[in-house]
């Protein structure tokens, strides 16, 4: 009896990575590739967003609002309008961080900021339909639901990044991202996205 239980346990342990972990089953794999092709066909999109940052060290979540603009192949802009003014713009390898309310502007090379690069590619790679880039930075879990909506779970491959961000969950329907939840250090940032025409 004991013996059987132990081997069952072992079998369960062996099965874990296949069943519940990073490798999507074949059908989901195909669906993910199909979804990426749909994204790749979108040359330009705009959306507004609201974001709530819950940080365990703070009494209340920090809210913010703004807009997102995507222009294929590699330009992504996140513009926060309240409560602070902030523009985060990525084009190719350059990341520009502007604070119009303070009149400051900083420019980085993503190559010099590997952690920032991974965070950027989570969104940009998805919008570009660039599965190869996503896989370069993340373990990807993917579920396609019956109503056509989907859910993608990104776990950073880099240990350094995992020190700050443990998981990024994107959800959407068709070639539209509707939610991005970034989980890290006991806190979670929930972004809700409304596509604009």
């Amino acid at each position, binding site marked *: 009896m004991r013996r059987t239980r132990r081997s069952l346990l072992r079998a369960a342990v062996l099965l874990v990575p296949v069943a519940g972990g990073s490798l999507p089953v074949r059908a989901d794999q195909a669906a993910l590739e199909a979804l990426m092709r749909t994204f790749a066909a979108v040359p330009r999109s705009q959306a507004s967003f609201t974001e709530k*940052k819950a940080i365990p*060290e*703070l009494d209340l979540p920090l809210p*913010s609002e703004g807009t997102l603009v995507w222009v294929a192949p590699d330009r992504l802009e996140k513009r926060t309008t309240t*409560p602070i003014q902030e523009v985060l713009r990525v084009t190719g390898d350059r990341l520009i961080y502007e604070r119009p309310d303070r009149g400051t502007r900083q420019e980085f090379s993503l*190559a010099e900021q590997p952690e920032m690069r991974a965070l950027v590619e989570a969104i940009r790679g998805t919008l570009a339909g660039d599965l190869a880039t996503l896989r370069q930075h993340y373990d990807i879990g993917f579920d396609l639901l019956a109503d056509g909506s989907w859910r993608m779970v990104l776990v950073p491959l880099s240990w350094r990044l995992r020190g700050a961000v443990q998981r990024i969950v994107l959800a959407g329907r068709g070639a539209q991202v509707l939610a991005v939840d970034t989980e890290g250090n006991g*806190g979670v940032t929930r972004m809700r996205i409304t596509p604009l025409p």
Partner: protein
Amino acid sequence: MTRILAALLLLAGLGGVLAAKVGLRTDLAEFLPPGRTPASAFLFHELQGGTATTLLLAGIEGADPKELARLSRETAAALRASGRFDFVGDGTLSLSEAEQALLFRYRYLLSPETRPETFTPAALRPHLEALLEGLRSSASPLLVRFGFADPTGAFLGLARTWLAEARVETWDGAWFATGDGPPRALLLARARGAGLDAEAQRDAVATFQAAFAAARPGQARLLLSGPGVFAAEAAAVIRADVRRVSLAAVALLAAFLFWRYRSFLMLAVVAVPLAAGTIAGFAATAAISGGAVHGIALGFGMTMLGVTVDYPILLVTLRRPEERLGEAAARLWPTLRLAAASAAAGLAAMLGSGFPGLVQLGVFAGTGLLAAATTTRWILPLLLPGMRIMARPLPAPLRVALSALRGRRALAGAVALAAAVGLAAAGGPTWQRDLAALSPVPHAAQALDAELRSQLGAPDVRILFALGPGSEAAVLEASERLGTAVAPLIGRDGALQGLDLPSRYLPSPATQRARQHALPEAETLQQALRAAAEGLPFRPTAFAPFLAGVEESRTLPPLDLAALEGAPTLAARLSPLLSRRGGSVQGVALAQGVTDPAALAAVAAQLDDPRILFVDVKAETEGVIAAYARVTLLWALAGGVLVLGLLALGLGGPVRALRTAGPIGGALLVTLAVLALTGEALTLFHLASLLLLAGLAIDYSLFLGRAATDPGAATDDTLGAVLNCAVSTLLTFGLLAFSGTPVLHGIGLTVSVGVASAFLLACALTPRPAAHA
């Protein structure tokens, strides 16, 4: 015939045994004198065994940037994996998790921001507001990592100063040179262990090249520089140059001798004294230098001994048809002995120079000359008892020309005078003050080194302060004292741009303890924090890691060199500035962008601290070279007087001695004038060549003079013999003048010009033959 071949074989075997038993030194530093002032003593100690010798600079070029970046990353990874390097800098420079944890733990002891006023509510408030602001921004995931444990930003401030790399641009995980020109990835590596010997340096270079080759470079090229590369490259270049020149010289010499004597045996005759002299010189040098001969002394010494071909040529040519070789040797011996003794006496100048390399060279050449002369006198006749080699008469036009030259004392005087005037017009001989010019490293390699250094933002250090030696704490305290004193001078309009101090990375234990005293008690900090966070949405427990960190810092044992083993990046930053030597520690502070060295010297003088020594590298090395050049010059004069004395003794009177010395003085004047007019700056090697030249000129002068005063001697034969000697020397040294190695070129030029003028002057000073009148 068989005897001489057996003798040559024996000599070759002996040479092989010596070469195998005696080690060769190749680093330039060993060729240099020990310092005389504390500053120069420190400097040469550093050059010989300091951490500077462990540095390797590399550039990769010849491909597109993406490929260069890949090559750089893979090469760096292989270097790190090899375990032979303390530090490998490539664009991926970052603190490892363990190192980060150690330094984070010590942040308040290491940070200069740790002062009592940093932890008051008024000072904390802006930090908390900035943190909240940051948390609202997109950078928040990265901020929460350190923000709550270190709201004052002590650690991030430290990391910024430690990792600051001003000049290089990072792209795709690799460093790239800025500026125009094709893209070039840059790497920096510091071999494990301080003060490497040549062997370990070669290993490090080989490891580097293997790592690059393993990265499948394709079209791309690796440019490597640093003291280790220099040593290897210098040795290789000199070897290649000497081999090329000696092969060509042997071929030319053989052709010439065959033309003059119609005998292949003559080659063996010439080779025996040369080989014997070389072996004797090598053995004597090894004996006085404690078993290791410097490569420069060996290479240069062998070249100098090329002049000993004179002795057998004179012996064979001046043999009368009815004489046996032994009889001729006995007859010529007084003159030959005087020539060799005078030449060796001239080299005595090098023994007195105090320059270890020149002393070795002097011993090598002096012993070799005497051994070659003795071999010519005693051994050659034994080997070739029945030798019948005769020189062919000189071609008629040449004989006529030389005859026309004879007895033209006025012409000789005019040439010497013109040389003196030319020399004076050129402002006298110019001395080479730059140590680099003494270096056998080719110009191209030196230029590459300078380029890589400036691209990596590590320009050659000209001004530094030596700190200590003393205990670790004492050296770090001296560093802090110096830092405080120099701080007001740093800046755009100041005396310097920056000063890299060991205490910048590792504060002294006293400073760390003072910072611990500046840290507030837990209760006080808690209250200050509560007051500072008034009205901000932080939870009461938010800053628990901060409180715990400060509390822990109050009782940490101060960080020291030993503990830094756990922080390789920081230790590597510190290693060029602080090194352990036996029981004590030696530090250096490197100054950058110095515009006013005098102001820095004044600071050191004002501090009046025996542990702080101002060192102007260029001025010190120039001073040392100039001092030794002066001493060598004095000894050369003394050698000249000694030679004159010897000549007076051997020739029976000072007047004859002066007459014999006339062509020598004239030849030296002409040579110096030619060097000055062609813009050659004199180095110690030129000086040594001049001494050698004087030794050669003595042969010509003595034998021609002897022929003139000895009615039995056939003057034409003597002229022919001396001409054969001069042409042999010209052939070998003339080739050296075309060598790419500065040292060899200098020797070749000096000796060729000197030999030609010495021969012509000696010829002009010989009386006109009476028989033709």
